[in-house]
């Protein structure tokens, strides 16, 4: 340990809430020089929030933070960088319009003045060659011309370059997600070299094998808390998975759906040789699980597009879609609640191309009662409703349509628990009446409501769980790969 016994960075009792959601609920976390710490946990465990607090992007609601042993009042991105903290984020964050050299310049304030271009090019080229020998990356080309894997390599190398002041701590969020086995191996070897030379690394990964083999210590998070913090040698894949999902939830009794298996599929999707096939039968509640961003939304969009027809031949409306990102994909923000609800129904309630206002009012009043939207007047603007009630309107929009299949893209984001239970009951009632639901959710207890669950990893279905097989532990162990890819 080169820095004495002071951790490079430490947080104590950090709390952070977004509205009613407690993203961090009293977290203690520290990293020392010469240490590689693994950070694991399922969706929404608070990993990203913790990283944002470490790098100064977010400030905690309460709790203390110390850099190199000194307490810090107001942390900031600039301060984090000044002590040598770098982050590689999960979503690729380079400027696609700039060249590799120019991206290095953006990362380094000190690369300026005469000849900066040459110095930047040498800096990034040397680091790329050090981490990924024989990479063949031309640093004079702009990022938009590189593949995803090459972009990830460039971003990782940029984080490890130092121009003024040394790099003390690098946070790697899913760094190997788009690297092949060879490149991932090169990276992990470099991480060990970097740590041996006195650097510190925080490694976040869904591949438990690489976390176990590379890190010295593993911190497991769950529901905004640290639930385990022990040397890596004391963990095995099984005990890690166990630590991530230790709470056993009582599952709600569900009517047996064996009869459903015999029925013909209403919707199917064949995977081209990768992973399992997807099948949906009438009356089923199908969950799509796995870590966020592993292909679930892609699957929903593919399913929808396959049935969507084109602008020339509108489809017979077989599927309806409930969007998760209300503000972007769901609401028509300038319209009233009635109009937001009836937009999928227009063909049914129109006569001679004109909307039949009376029929519209009748149908929406009916749904107003059925789903209990909390408003006096359905002609109020949609944005006058709370988030949960807006989401109910979007559900009603899908349920009111005659479509036999409803696709749901994590629709419960930011919805309060009371509304959630109302919607769950509504879904079960509709499913019993024969409608099929395909439900992508990042929340474990929602996935556990389903009759059948497909678990996604790296864009493919890696497991299918039916009925009583559905458990948090089974889903977790399927979402995290055991070995390095």
């Amino acid at each position, binding site marked *: 340990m080169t820095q004495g016994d002071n951790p490079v960075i430490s947080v104590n009792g950090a709390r952070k809430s977004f509205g009613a959601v407690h993203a961090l609920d009293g977290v203690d976390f520290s990293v020392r020089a010469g240490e590689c710490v693994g950070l694991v946990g399922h969706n929404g465990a608070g990993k990203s929030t913790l990283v944002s607090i470490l*790098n100064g*992007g977010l400030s905690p609601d309460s709790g203390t933070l110390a850099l190199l042993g000194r307490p810090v009042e107001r942390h900031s*991105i*600039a301060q984090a*960088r000044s002590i040598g903290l770098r*982050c590689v*984020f999960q979503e690729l*964050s*380079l*400027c*696609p*319009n*700039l060249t590799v050299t*120019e*991206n290095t*310049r*953006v*990362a*380094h*304030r000190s*690369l*300026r*003045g005469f000849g*900066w*271009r040459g110095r930047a090019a040498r800096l990034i080229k040397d680091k790329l060659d050090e981490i990924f020998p024989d990479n063949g990356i*031309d640093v004079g*080309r*702009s990022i*938009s*011309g590189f*593949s995803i894997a090459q972009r990830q390599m460039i971003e990782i190398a940029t984080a490890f370059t130092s121009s003024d002041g040394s790099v003390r701590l690098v946070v790697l969020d899913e760094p190997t997600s788009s690297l092949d086995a060879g490149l991932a191996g090169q990276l992990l070897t470099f991480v060990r070299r970097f740590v041996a030379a006195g650097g510190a690394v925080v490694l976040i990964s869904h591949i438990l094998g690489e976390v176990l083999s590379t890190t010295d210590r593993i911190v497991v998070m769950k529901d905004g808390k640290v639930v385990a913090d022990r040397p890596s040698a004391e963990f095995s894949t099984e005990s890690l998975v166990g630590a991530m999902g230790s709470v056993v939830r009582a599952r709600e009794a569900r009517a047996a759906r064996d009869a459903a298996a015999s029925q013909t599929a209403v919707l199917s999707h064949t995977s081209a040789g990768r992973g399992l096939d997807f099948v949906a039968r009438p009356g089923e509640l199908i969950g799509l699980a796995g870590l966020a961003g592993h292909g679930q939304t892609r699957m929903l969009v593919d399913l929808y597009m396959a049935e969507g027809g084109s602008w020339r031949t509108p489809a017979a409306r077989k599927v309806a879609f409930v969007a998760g990102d209300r503000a972007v994909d769901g609401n028509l923000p300038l319209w009233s609640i009635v109009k937001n609800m009836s937009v999928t129904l227009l063909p049914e309630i129109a006569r001679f191309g004109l909307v039949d206002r009376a029929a519209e009012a009748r149908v929406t009043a009916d749904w107003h009662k059925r789903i209990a939207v909390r408003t006096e007047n359905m002609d109020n603007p949609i944005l006058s409703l709370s988030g949960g009630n807006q989401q109910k309107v979007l559900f009603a929009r899908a349920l009111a349509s005659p479509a036999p299949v409803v696709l749901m893209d994590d629709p419960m984001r930011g919805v309060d628990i009371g509304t959630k239970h109302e919607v769950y009951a509504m879904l079960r009632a509709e499913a019993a009446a024969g409608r099929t639901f395909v439900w992508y959710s990042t929340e474990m207890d929602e996935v556990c409501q389903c009759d059948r669950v497909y678990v996604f990893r790296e864009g493919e279905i890696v497991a299918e769980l039916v009925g009583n097989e559905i458990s948090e532990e089974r889903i977790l162990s399927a979402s995290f790969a055991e070995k390095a890819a």
Partner: protein
Amino acid sequence: MKLLTAERIRLLVPSMSLAVLLVAVFWLQPRTMSYTGLNLLFNLAVPIALATVAQMLIMMVNDLDLSMGTFVSFVACVTATWVQTDPLIGFAILAACIGVYALIGALIYLRNLPSIVVTLGMSFVWGGLAVLLLPAPGGVAPDWIRAIMTVKPPFAPMAIVASIGIALVAHWLVMRSSLGVVLRGVGGNERTVERAGWSVLRARATAYALAGFFAVLAGMCLVGLTTSADANIALRYTLLSIAGVILGGGEFVGGRVSPIGAVIGALTLTLAASLLSFLKISPDWQIGAQGAILIIVLAVRLLLNRSEARGTGQ
């Protein structure tokens, strides 16, 4: 190293279209192929090129300036009145204008406003101020500006030398300097720039201030050429400058801009108007014909980009 990178294609199309137009003009009217001829063809392109560079700086950070035309008109009015009579006050006004541009840039970022709305509003402000200053066409260009704009350098006429100069300065500033990289980075991925510890607020304000500076130069050059000003003198610059940037290979979003291309785009647009006059197309049809030229050039660029994308096949 590949010969045809995306950046080179971006420059190739505007250069080719300028060359084609130039050949057509020379063929129709051989007398333009002279020192004076070229100067006459291109001298009105100098202020347009400056305004196009200004617009490009705004588009570089994913915004759009709809007040460019009225702002250049206002600057022209200030130049023909205050700068001529009381240079000190005149330059103070122009410096304040650049400050206002920086403020607008900061405001748009801080309040997360659509730049189109803010600059559309500002266009009425600038337009109103210009009318207050010069209710009727008038004013006199300061002699020194007049002298600069009518200078006769050896070898090549002023319009050509000035255009090359503008292109080189803008290219150095935007593409080569370390500041330009950060500014383009804001257009490419604002979060990355922010996470690297830069102030996006300052970067955006800088981009707007630079745009203001180039627009002020545009107004002053324009007065140097026309010798007097008018509150409506440069209204068409708003659309000309946007068209020039796009024609020159720039894009509305993503920080993809080309300063040399923008200057070439401005020259092309000016030349297109001359070509249509030489073709004896009635002025009624000229704007439509100019639009047609724009569409053709953009279609060619789209086709080239597509074949490029197919070529890399990633």
